[in-house]
């Protein structure tokens, strides 16, 4: 079928969504064209391109992009495509282009901002229309690029809200993460763990806000951890791995009481009160440095804010502690890539970086015993949704009609409002630029 605006809105009901959101290749193609053009996607962190000429190449919604550090210290995002014949201008995920960008195919060159520099056989173009057409204008630079506390976001199209209007108060999640540094600076370090998962990206994203699955899905991992740790006195210092894995076995009540908050446009914080990350051992000298840098009140606020996950819809999930992010990259209706990045927190002791790396390794590595069960179930769901007789996915838990039209709202931690809010934003930005 061919979807129009009202069809999209019919797929997302108040308390359930149609299975086509997960399994339809046609909807995926429309997402690439509409949804990802109208929303802000996380691209990368400026610490990944510290020097002029440094680049990071990232594909977003099928567009090959490159973020380039400029000679003046600024950040530009360019389409990684030679305006001549279409060759990619950089072939690796990151590196340094030097003083200018040079196409490997015919040696056309460009300044770091993408402006044309030189072409071979220049005289042969005299009297032609090259200069006045797209091919003569250099590399295409993205118009909508925002750098917020070193996090770089892009919007591919001209429609949709501006950066501040789109994220609004959800940006406090990034503030809470960055303010974990006494000097307000994070650096991406330790490499990236990348996973291919054969499921729709929205299935993964809604799971980030799913607090009812850990008890059953992760039972085998938490039971094994519990069995190995059994018999230890309650106050015995836990190895970091145990400290990180055991809380996955917390009960429904724990997850319900952690609380959630939804923001307009699909963003959320799960664990506004506490989370499975709240019990990590305290680091007194770090906390003293935080108080000295931020003042008593802000330091306490930052250190106590330890959410399960904060979602900057639709591509970024943030943990304030451990300092780690997940990035969701859709690849097909039934395929996505998950990236887990660690941060080194400037001005903080090594143990915070170790926590970040260990958490990503234990929970988001292709070899993670926690993720194995998630991934296996997602991949099974992706196939089983082709079963006939029920076209719908339930999102009924705690639905109340008065939640409709609310902007920012607080809720219990097991409330599926955290997911309904994502799908409502999906329908909104998917249909924004579609025909009636």
């Amino acid at each position, binding site marked *: 079928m061919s979807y129009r605006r009202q069809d999209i809105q019919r797929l997302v009901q108040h308390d359930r969504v149609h299975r086509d959101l997960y399994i339809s290749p046609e909807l995926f193609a429309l997402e690439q064209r509409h949804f990802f053009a109208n929303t802000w996607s996380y691209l990368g962190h400026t610490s990944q391109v510290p020097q002029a000429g440094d680049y990071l190449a990232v594909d977003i919604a099928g567009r090959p992009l490159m973020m380039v550090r400029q000679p003046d210290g600024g950040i530009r995002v360019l389409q990684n495509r030679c305006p001549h014949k279409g060759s990619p201008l950089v072939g690796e995920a990151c590196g340094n282009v030097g003083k200018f960008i040079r196409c490997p195919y015919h040696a056309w060159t460009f300044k770091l901002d993408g402006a044309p520099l030189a072409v071979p056989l220049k005289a042969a173009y005299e009297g032609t229309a090259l200069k006045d057409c797209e091919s003569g204008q250099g590399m295409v630079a993205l118009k909508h690029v925002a750098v917020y506390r070193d996090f770089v976001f892009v919007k591919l199209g001209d429609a949709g809200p501006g950066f501040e209007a789109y994220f609004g108060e959800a940006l406090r999640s990034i503030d809470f993460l960055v303010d974990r540094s006494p000097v307000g600076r994070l650096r991406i370090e330790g*490499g990236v*763990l990348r*996973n291919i998962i054969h499921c729709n990206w929205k299935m993964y994203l809604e799971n980030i806000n799913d607090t009812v699955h850990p008890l059953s899905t992760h039972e085998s991992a938490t039971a*094994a951890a519990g069995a*190995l740790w059994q018999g230890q006195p309650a106050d015995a210092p836990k190895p970091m*791995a145990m400290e990180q894995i055991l809380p996955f076995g917390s009960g429904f009540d724990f997850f319900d009481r952690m609380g959630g908050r939804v923001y307009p446009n699909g963003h959320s914080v799960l664990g506004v009160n506490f989370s499975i990350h709240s019990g990590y051992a305290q680091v007194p000298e770090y906390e003293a440095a935080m108080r000295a840098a931020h003042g008593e009140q802000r330091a306490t606020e930052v250190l106590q804010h330890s959410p399960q996950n904060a979602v900057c819809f639709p591509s970024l999930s943030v943990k304030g502690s451990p300092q780690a992010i997940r990035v969701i990259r859709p690849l097909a209706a039934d395929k996505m890539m998950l990236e887990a990045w660690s941060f080194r927190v400037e001005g903080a002791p090594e143990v915070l970086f170790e926590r970040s790396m260990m958490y990503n*390794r234990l929970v988001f590595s292709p070899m993670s*015993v926690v993720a*194995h069960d998630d991934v296996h179930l997602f991949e099974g769901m992706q196939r089983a949704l082709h079963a006939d007789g029920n076209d719908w996915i339930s999102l009924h838990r705690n639905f109340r009609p008065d939640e409709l039209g609310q902007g920012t709202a607080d809720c219990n931690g097991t409330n599926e409002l955290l997911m309904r809010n994502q799908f409502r934003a999906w329908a909104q930005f998917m249909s924004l630029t579609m025909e009636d």
Partner: protein
Amino acid sequence: MDVNIERELQDFIVHEAHLIDTRQLDDWLALFAEHARYWIPLHGAAQTEGDAVNSLADEDRLLLALRIERLKNPRAHSQRPPSRCQHVLQTPQLLRSDEAAGRFELLTPFLYVEAQGERQQMLAGTARHRLLRRDGRLQIEQKRVDLLNAGEALPAIQLFP
């Protein structure tokens, strides 16, 4: 170099892979010394010990035991159906040998196939074993596995390359 010792070390490496491939995982774990490490660096062979770089897996005996315990649990959902694996080893090459101290290091290029249901994936890599002889028995002090494409986006690896 005593050829008998070299042969014994090579047999040990082959036996170690055999225990994984036949899912005799408690016996496999028993090969590891108390302070052993099973390590799959994220940057493969390019990664130096001590680099501030993550790993696909970096496990002591406690974490290895956790993996093995979990696999026995009927609610290890990702093991329905169970994964199976096969190591295809090249002849282990003895890199270092100190018979007096009972310390040896071997390098073994391999292909590793992991299958589950109709899906099968193949990884290429090189294992580096640091072995100890204690009370006449060989033990693994460290098994480092450098995968050819460790840093790429990978599907789940559920067993032990």
